[in-house]
């Protein structure tokens, strides 16, 4: 087991005051909060910081941790000395982070026995029954799945308490039907797939949130879809009928003459399907043919000579 230097993790001095520790925690928590942060390892960092704060914010736990000695280095192989916590009184008090199962083995070894699951132990006894907690998970799908419907497998890791009272992570895989017409942020409820009930209570539900994988061409906003569409200069200038991809297959689109880059066109009802289907928005993006042959160069020179075109006329030069 590796030693964890909680002071180093939080970037505070070993003599830091409780106020300094709190300030450091707040700052790091804002930086690495998984809802806010886009850092790759945000979730892991956030848990680590939460664990460090769990110990350092509590003077009892901090004192017990401190007496392990200052000579330990982060990552060093660690075994707690026998009776290391003798003479310390822990008054309990649950986890503020709430999710004890995500703490490290190091934490578990030091504080696990005293602190594990305060308020989580139900004797399953007479007269008391309660519905199990609802669980939440995300299900990643492709935009095309919203057009065609799909079946997706998701693997869930749920902390459970085993017979010996240890918190273990159980893995289970569910095959879930994704109905046609779903969009980002929608929820699918699977009844009875949450946490087990207590004392004969009903099982909780599992809520699955729909999330689209980033798509190569399309971008979804609600039920609407956006597509940046490259067009040739002559298509934009002269007008043209061109083929446009949509998640449901290619369609014909008429581009009016004298269209400019950035022009937005709407294909009504070609967004995510449903009773009220979304729209598909096309944003024109004029692509320039490369001048990599004599013929192409000649054509560009001809345009230069005959069009008298100043793209910077609006800029007054």
């Amino acid at each position: 087991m590796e030693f964890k230097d909680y002071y180093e993790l939080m970037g505070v001095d070993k003599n830091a005051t409780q106020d300094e520790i709190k300030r450091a925690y707040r700052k790091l928590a804002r930086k690495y909060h998984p809802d806010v942060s886009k850092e790759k390892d945000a979730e892991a960092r956030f848990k680590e910081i939460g664990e460090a704060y769990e110990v350092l914010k509590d003077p009892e736990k901090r004192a017990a941790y401190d007496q392990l000695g200052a000579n330990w280095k982060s990552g060093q192989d660690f075994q707690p000395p026998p009776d290391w916590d003798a003479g310390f009184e822990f008054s309990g008090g649950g986890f503020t982070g709430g999710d004890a199962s995500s703490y490290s083995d190091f934490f578990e070894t030091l504080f696990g026995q005293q602190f594990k699951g305060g308020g989580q132990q139900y004797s399953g006894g007479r007269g008391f029954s309660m519905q199990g907690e609802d669980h939440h998970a995300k299900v990643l799908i492709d935009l095309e799945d919203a057009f065609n419907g799909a079946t997706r497998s998701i693997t869930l890791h749920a902390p459970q308490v085993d017979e010996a009272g240890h918190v273990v992570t159980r893995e289970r895989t569910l095959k879930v039907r994704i109905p046609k017409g779903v969009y980002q942020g929608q929820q699918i409820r699977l009844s009875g797939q949450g946490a087990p009930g207590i004392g004969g209570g009903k099982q909780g539900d599992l809520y699955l949130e729909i999330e689209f994988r980033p798509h190569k061409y399309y971008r979804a906003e609600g039920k609407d879809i956006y597509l940046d569409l490259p067009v040739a200069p002559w298509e934009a200038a002269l007008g043209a009928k061109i083929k446009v991809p949509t998640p449901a297959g290619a369609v014909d689109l008429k581009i009016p003459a004298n269209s400019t880059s950035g022009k937005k066109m709407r294909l009504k009802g070609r967004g995510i399907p449903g009773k009220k289907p979304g729209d598909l928005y096309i944003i024109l993006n004029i692509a320039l043919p490369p001048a990599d042959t004599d013929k192409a160069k000649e054509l560009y020179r001809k345009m230069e000579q005959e069009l008298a075109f100043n793209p910077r006329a609006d800029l007054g030069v």
Partner: protein
Amino acid sequence: MTQEMIGLLLDQEHPLTLGELSRACSMHADWVLELVEEGILEPLNPEVPRLQFSGQNLHRALIVRRLQQDLGVNLSGAALALQLMEEVETLRARLNAMSCR
């Protein structure tokens, strides 16, 4: 072989009740009502206590709960953070689409 499961899509026709939303957040109904008051959640109908919510409201409520519990922000702070986060998300999606070209 795992059997295919068919859940209930929480759309306009299948909203969450106040009780269901509270339970899904492991919070008291009063907390959900505070979120409505703050304008964070928008019920589909205004009849207290028979309020009904779309599934997207659950997503917002869960973020607010985490911001409150993990960062100690108050409700109006959480509302502001949520609004800014949604703006950032939209901008990020546009930026991604542009750099993919």
